């Protein structure tokens, strides 16, 4: 097996019109890693993912991937049209659109869909309309679609954005299990305590890479202030860093 990184971003800059969104970004993702990219809104997290996926042009620098690398992309569930007339099974086989033209789902595809759904613990939802799913099931279905391509790396944009605490726990456990099975995962998140602090490697991004390492190394007040532009305190809770921001505002009527 090649020891080259799966993805190698060197000197990467991206723009929207004349505005620089990413500036001189270096990042390597090796096989088997679980990496979270954190940063404030507008820091370029999603643009970095899009550049890696090839849907946003790179203005300077280069992104090289291993030859024949298969990407499994899971978009934000908030961007999905939940009223669209498709069943879970139809959503999952979509990723075979390029290789199969026959409109009907074949027996072998149906079996493969059942397998991937079972693996993610939702074996009974194949024939449901996507609107008839709970938050955790919705996230799992889109993860199942990405897994259906048998990807080398899973790329997820804000997997816990807009979900409740229970769903967030479900997603986190699921990703930990996939990672334990050897899956390489790259995700973006704004959820420092709920998701980022649990990951083995974090990249703090604000147009450029501010810090890159394990959460204990990078979740420090100085790195967080450089990343988010606001003072933050880092405590230790249950052996994990806990981030508290200093955004306390005295409200009228409080403390009476």
């Amino acid at each position: 097996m090649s020891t080259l990184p799966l993805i190698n971003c060197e000197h990467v800059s991206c723009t929207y019109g004349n505005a620089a969104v990413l500036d001189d970004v270096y990042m390597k993702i090796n096989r088997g890693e679980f990496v979270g990219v954190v940063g404030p809104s507008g820091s370029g997290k999603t643009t970095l993912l899009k550049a890696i996926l090839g849907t946003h042009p790179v203005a300077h620098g280069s992104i090289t991937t291993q030859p024949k690398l298969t990407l499994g992309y899971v978009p934000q569930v908030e961007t999905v049209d939940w009223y669209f007339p498709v069943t879970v099974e139809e959503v999952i086989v979509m990723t075979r659109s390029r290789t199969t033209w026959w409109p009907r789902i074949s027996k072998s595809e149906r079996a493969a869909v059942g397998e991937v759904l079972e693996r993610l613990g939702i074996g009974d939802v194949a024939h449901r309309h996507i609107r008839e799913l709970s938050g955790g099931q919705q996230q799992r279905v889109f993860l199942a679609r990405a897994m259906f391509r048998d990807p080398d790396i899973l790329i997820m944009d804000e997997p816990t954005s807009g979900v409740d605490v229970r769903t967030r726990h479900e997603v986190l456990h699921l990703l930990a299990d996939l990672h334990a099975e050897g899956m390489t995962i790259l995700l973006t998140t704004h959820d420092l305590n709920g998701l980022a602090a649990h990951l083995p490697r974090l990249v703090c991004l604000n147009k450029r890479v501010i810090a890159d390492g394990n959460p204990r190394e990078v979740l420090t007040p100085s790195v967080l202030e450089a990343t988010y532009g606001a003072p933050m305190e880092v405590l230790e809770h249950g052996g994990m860093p806990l981030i508290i921001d200093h955004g306390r505002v005295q409200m009228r009527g409080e403390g009476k």
Partner: protein
Amino acid sequence: MILSFDLFEPYGFQFFQHGLVVATIAGALCGLLGVFVVLRGMSYIGHGLSHAVFGGAAASAVIGINFFIGAGIWGIVSGVLIARVARRRVLGADAAIGVVTTASFALGLALMNRYGQASKSIEAVLFGSVLGVKLVDIVAVSIVALFALSVIVLWYRKLLFSTFDPDVAQVSGVKVSLVEMVLLSLLSLTILVTMRVIGTLLISALLVIPAAAARMTTNSFSKLLWISPVIGATTCFVGMNLSYHLDTSASATIILLDALVFIAVYAIAGTRNRMKMASLGHV
């Protein structure tokens, strides 16, 4: 007063037979493509392209080239222009359509005023006319319908994927911009072969109403692809017959019938869906 009429009387006229065949095939074709128009939120594109094709029709009449060639090229070019302007994101798709198609429509009007046979031909193009339908129209609408059907069968998965989730489709190797171009070209061709019967102003309704009504009856994409054409073809067939007996415009009768079907489905499906939602509770 007792109304008595012979149901088969209009079938004695060849113009009616031709008009009926074109309208029924056009209804099925618009219903089929309408599924994508509705699911992609492209209703305004259908409206805009029909206006653009009008410009092409007028220009080809003035230059003296075949209607299908002139208006067809014009329509496809307009579709491609809209897609290009919209992709730049500086202008929204609605503004892009507004600029390209209204300018084209205005040019068509000016050309017809200056060189055309004044108001009569303008009215025929705007509101459609079964009188002018010829055998060549039947051939044209049949070819476009077969072509559209082939594209939709062969590209079923690509069309579904790029309609539902264009970003992930692109990452998964689907050429989303090519699919979009083909869909816009098909839409232009459909408008081109339908406009003589239905007219420029009402084609967009035929692209939207059957698909919107069908959408309320099913949650399955594949079922939508046959329910919508069936609604489109049936309303066109019945509407054409009704228009003869009621002495009303064919296009207006067809669209009103479509609207009635929509209202009926809305009333029935609305009640059914509310009951279903209530029984689902929080999953």
